[in-house]
């Protein structure tokens, strides 16, 4: 019984991952599997779109698939990574509903605190939005682009199609073992580790292209500027470029259509929409988006900095500075990346101090800036300077949880 339960758990892993929108650096074996399954895709019969409120025939393989993913969803609900903030959830949920229309009630949205750019859709309507996505998109139209894409996967039932392709090509057990290889660990809630291991699966080219097209149509119908869809990919490509040789580029990039191709395809489609439709609205809802993520922005940036992917984070923050939302705090977090890297060859200490100074000049930074500057000066043997910065920190944050320790760092300087 336990073995059976474990097997069902593993299967759920596979299905959840199969439901993912994108993949990250699939291994050679996974690429081979994907290629083979893609060749099978051309032979498949098209599954009709799912209707609003529809559940699979209880005797079908799709029903079994849903049942197992339902169990996975039960674990998602209690996952420690889940962001439960009612306001943020209501905001994302409303966008999904506006896009999904009659299917609104069929899709459940969860926000996971995982600092990678991704969102996933499972065959049963479980959508998981990763917090790294919220940090990166610049406005509501861009967020809607990704959500609309995920809804496209659901409507077209890409998840069950992928399940059938792999099962038919390799057999059920092979499907299971591939899931294990993808995951590498037995806990399905460990999505951060899965992401780090590059184990996420992706849909094939035609599924992704189809979901892109559906997403674009959805956002246009909802009144968003269709040109923002291509900009999502543009930002992803730029972030990958600045990350250099570092492996952890966006989860989007190993999806089968190259991001450059997707950007071009979406640009062309958006131009057609804008040309052919005179009534199209062109909302971006930048301010509304910024207001929604403002309470979370510093936490999202802190999570990004803690990835310790220095080049990527610096590049990303530079792009966000260019975007212009709360630039002071961005300079502080860029300084944090430099402080944590602390590479003398790259002159990180001077760079960090410069960024802290810029943040202080602009304003809107957290009090922790002064603590960080103090730590840096301590490393540079500037004890009076460190003590002054620590005092500024404690003045700005009298209830600091590390107050007593900070005071212990100040004392030696004041005694000398």
């Amino acid at each position, binding site marked *: 019984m336990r073995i059976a339960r474990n097997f069902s758990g593993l299967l759920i892993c596979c299905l959840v991952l199969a439901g993912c929108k994108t993949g990250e650096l699939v291994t050679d074996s996974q690429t081979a599997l994907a290629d083979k399954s893609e060749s099978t895709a051309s032979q498949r019969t098209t599954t009709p779109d799912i209707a609003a409120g529809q559940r699979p025939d209880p005797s079908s393989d799709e029903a079994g698939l849903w049942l197992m993913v339902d169990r996975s969803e039960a674990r998602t609900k209690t996952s*420690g990574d889940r962001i439960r903030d009612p306001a943020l959830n209501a905001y994302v949920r409303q966008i999904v509903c506006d896009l999904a229309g009659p299917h609104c009630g069929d899709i459940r949205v969860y926000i996971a605190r995982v600092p990678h750019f991704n969102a996933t859709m499972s065959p049963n309507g479980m959508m998981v939005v990763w917090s790294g996505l919220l940090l990166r998109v610049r406005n509501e139209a861009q967020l809607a682009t990704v959500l609309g894409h995920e809804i496209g996967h659901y409507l077209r039932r890409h998840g069950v199609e992928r399940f059938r392709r792999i099962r038919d090509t390799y057999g059920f057990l092979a499907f299971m073992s591939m899931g294990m290889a993808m995951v590498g660990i037995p806990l399905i809630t460990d999505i951060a580790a899965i992401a780090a291991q590059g184990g996420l699966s992706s849909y094939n080219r035609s599924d992704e292209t189809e979901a892109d097209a559906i997403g674009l149509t959805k956002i246009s119908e909802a009144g968003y500027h269709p040109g923002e869809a291509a900009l999502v990919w543009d930002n992803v490509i730029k972030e990958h470029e600045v990350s250099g040789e570092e492996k952890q580029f966006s989860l989007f990039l190993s999806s089968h259509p190259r991001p450059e191709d997707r950007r071009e395809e979406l640009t062309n489609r958006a131009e057609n929409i804008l040309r052919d439709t005179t009534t199209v609205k062109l909302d971006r809802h930048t301010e509304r988006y910024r207001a929604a993520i403002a309470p979370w922005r510093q936490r999202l940036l802190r999570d990004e900095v803690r990835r310790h992917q220095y080049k990527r984070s610096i590049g990303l923050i530079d792009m966000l500075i260019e975007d212009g939302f709360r630039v002071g705090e961005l300079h502080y977090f860029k300084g944090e990346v430099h402080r944590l890297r602390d590479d003398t060859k790259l002159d990180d200490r001077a760079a960090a101090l410069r960024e802290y100074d810029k943040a202080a000049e602009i304003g809107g930074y957290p009090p922790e800036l002064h603590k960080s500057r103090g730590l840096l000066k301590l490393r540079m043997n500037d004890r009076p300077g460190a003590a002054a910065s620590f005092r500024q920190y404690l003045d700005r944050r009298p209830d600091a*949880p590390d107050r007593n320790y900070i005071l212990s760092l100040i004392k030696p300087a004041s005694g000398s």
Partner: protein
Amino acid sequence: MKSFRNIAITITLAAMLSACAQITLVKPGVTTVNDTLTLNTLEPWNKFPPKNGLEIWTVDGPGLQTLRFNTKIKAGENIARQEGSDSGPNAKYKDMPTFKKGMNALEVSEMFVASYQQLGLAGVAVSNLRNEAFAGRDGFYFEIDFTDKEGLDRRGVVHGTVVDDVMHAIIYSAPKLHYFNRDRQRVDRLIKSVRFLSAAGA
């Protein structure tokens, strides 16, 4: 109610894991850890085979409480004591922060928080950071709260010191519900008895 269920699952997992690993009994009395520390325990513990300078003890199973003896961490090493790689299971250690010479306790706590986050733990937060003697030397202490992958809230306490640019730490962690407080006193007694072996170079 949910937490009790999670604990039950954890117990099961722990039991399954226990069946696989080579666990040995640590009898009450004076014992040596990692060829670095000596300590006196009044109660028996179960010990997993030490690996890469990391020795893990437990009473009821690693899901319910762990005592991690993480010794001789040199500059460039992470607290997981694992080499990172570009792919495969060790990819998750690739960007894990490493110990650096000259780090103070606050910077060490930052390293722990980022490491825990990278391992997929949520809501990681440090509190009660302070200077506190460890093994008869100047050391540090802090508490670290987090939520595990199953949504169970856990608390850890970290006791450590840096001697000659080498860090040594003992981390006790357990679910906040019941277990953390139940075993806290026995851990505190044990920590107070810790001393460096004279040959450990500390």
